[in-house]
């Protein structure tokens, strides 16, 4: 056997357990979900067949289409805001914090991860409430005369999400920044570039892969999240995951829930291909 064949066999041997796991616990269940999405309900019974009615309803029923739009809007806002906040934080940790303190700085940056997700969401509800810390502080400072309506609104949902995803993005962007050789920036400045020009033409392009990867992860996790909009959003608007949960938990309409889930997967897949194309993963 040639060396190449041996290496290929070794590669397959190493990747096979993961493939089997993915096949058994993702591919097969997903296929079952697609089959279920083509079924329909008669009374309380599921009738299997090939019926695209659930997909038609997902896009023609305004309530459902609006839920998808709400999810997309919130996710895009959260992703953009999180990137804008995480990048400076990651840059400060990477370039300004002394090397011996960077690990501690990262630990502090991701400390909220240590709290239960649900507890964190309820905590935000108390902080953003009419009698919460934010309103009390603003009222006490005389900035506002009446409490702001933040809890149970889209803004509360976005704040809850951003709080979580800034931590995630800080890690991915930091990992990219720390690998940049300082010689690139020195070379740029030696050639007369200002700090802004160095950042714009050297640092930013080199760190965009980390940004895009983090943004993709943020997009995927945010658009599929049910807890934060449910707790912080006050049901003032439905997102697609909440709609899916309603179909499953109350209506027992699993075919429709499956179709909506496949639609959600489709959106995530589209985001993946756009990210992969941008990152040129096909050339890796």
């Amino acid at each position, binding site marked *: 056997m040639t060396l190449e064949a041996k290496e290929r066999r070794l590669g397959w041997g190493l990747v096979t357990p993961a493939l089997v796991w993915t096949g058994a616990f993702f591919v097969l269940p997903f296929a079952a979900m697609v089959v279920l999405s083509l079924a329909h309900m008669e009374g309380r019974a599921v009738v299997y067949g090939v019926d695209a009615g659930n997909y038609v309803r997902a896009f023609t029923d305004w309530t459902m289409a609006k839920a998808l739009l709400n999810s997309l809007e919130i996710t895009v806002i959260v992703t953009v805001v999180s990137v804008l906040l995480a990048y400076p934080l990651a840059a400060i940790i990477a370039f300004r914090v002394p090397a011996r303190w960077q690990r501690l700085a990262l630990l502090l940056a991701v400390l909220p991860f240590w709290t239960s997700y649900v507890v964190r969401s309820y905590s935000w509800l108390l902080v953003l409430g009419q009698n*919460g810390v934010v309103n009390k502080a603003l009222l006490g400072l005389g900035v506002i005369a009446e409490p702001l309506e933040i809890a149970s609104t889209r803004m509360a949902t976005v704040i809850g999400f951003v709080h979580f995803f800034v931590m995630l993005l800080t890690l991915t962007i930091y990992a990219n920044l720390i690998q940049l050789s300082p010689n690139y920036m020195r070379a740029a400045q030696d050639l007369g570039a200002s700090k802004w020009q160095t950042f714009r033409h050297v640092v930013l392009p080199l760190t965009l892969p980390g940004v895009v990867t983090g943004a993709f992860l943020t997009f995927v996790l945010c658009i599929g999240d049910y807890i934060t909009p449910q707790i912080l959003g006050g049901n003032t*608007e439905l997102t697609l995951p909440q709609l899916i949960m*309603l179909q499953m938990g109350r209506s027992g309409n699993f075919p429709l829930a499956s179709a909506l889930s496949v639609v959600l997967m489709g959106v995530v897949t589209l985001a993946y291909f756009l990210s992969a194309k941008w990152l040129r993963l096909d050339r890796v």
Partner: protein
Amino acid sequence: MKKTGLIPLTALGILATASPSFAQELNALVWCDHTDPELVAPFEEKFGVKVNVKEYEGTAAGLAILDQSQPGDWDVMVIDAVDVGRAVEAGKLAEIPADALPTADFFPELVMPANNTVGGKTYAVTEKFGYNTISYDKTKVDPADMQDMAALTGGKYDGRIGIYDYYLPVLGLVALGQGLNTADIDAGTLPSLKEPLMKLRASAKQVSDVVSAQTALATGEVDIVVGGGEWLTAVLAADNPNLDWTIPKQGGLRWAQSIGVVAGTTQPDLALEFVKYIVSPEGQARLATASCYWGMPANAKAGEGLTAEQKAVLRWDEQPEFLKRAQLYPIPDAATDTAMQDMWTEMLNQ
């Protein structure tokens, strides 16, 4: 064997012998009030068993759990009284001997044979009840306004109302507000509830589940909860005596939860003993004041196990009057139920 291998093995052995072991375990699918350790402790001690509880939300979710389980995985189930028939139809509940249950001691309205029996056979027994009506902060709203549902959409309380996120009782309340009895909600009358429901939603700040509704009322985020009742305010009474509830002149809804033995249980006798314990005076007194939410016990003899303060919070002496003015949940057919949920979803996304 290498000496280093003895240490982890010894540790495992110590751990195994140190862990308490029970001869039997009882698995229960429940609502959050049954997760209170004080509720199940006497039963566990008496029978030397461990009661494992799994909380679920929504009958559809509970039935889905049973669908995905093997026979024998679950022994008892707590279920909305209106859904007992649905669970029996799905083959999920086992018959229980009616003469083993102390229903003779129940409040007569809470025996509910129409809900708990199918074809003359008993499949569940009512264990707790209460009201879905109007909860409010009496220091923030005029209690006199809360006697009339029309005040909720009159403009005075816009943005200060929370709606309990459960379509059946809230649509029932909306129906009562329109002069329609809950038993008369069907495919023909349902469309007439859409406009008042949307109007109520437009006046409300949020639509929330049990915990969020309690938090919102307690923190002043909202001053009124439509669909609330003693189940919302009683557990907060000690720290928030300003919270109250009432049944308005149009009436309120009576919620009830039942408990039954799951079909296919491998320990039917123990499961029945658990049901009997829950509906016994002691079990009922503990369940009535369990954490998560309080509610009236179905067994009137539970009063002997409640303190005067607990009875006052539950409004024990006012129950005969409340029971007269409260109607049962709507029990729609499958198509009307779907239509109600679609209307609710549309309301949420308005």
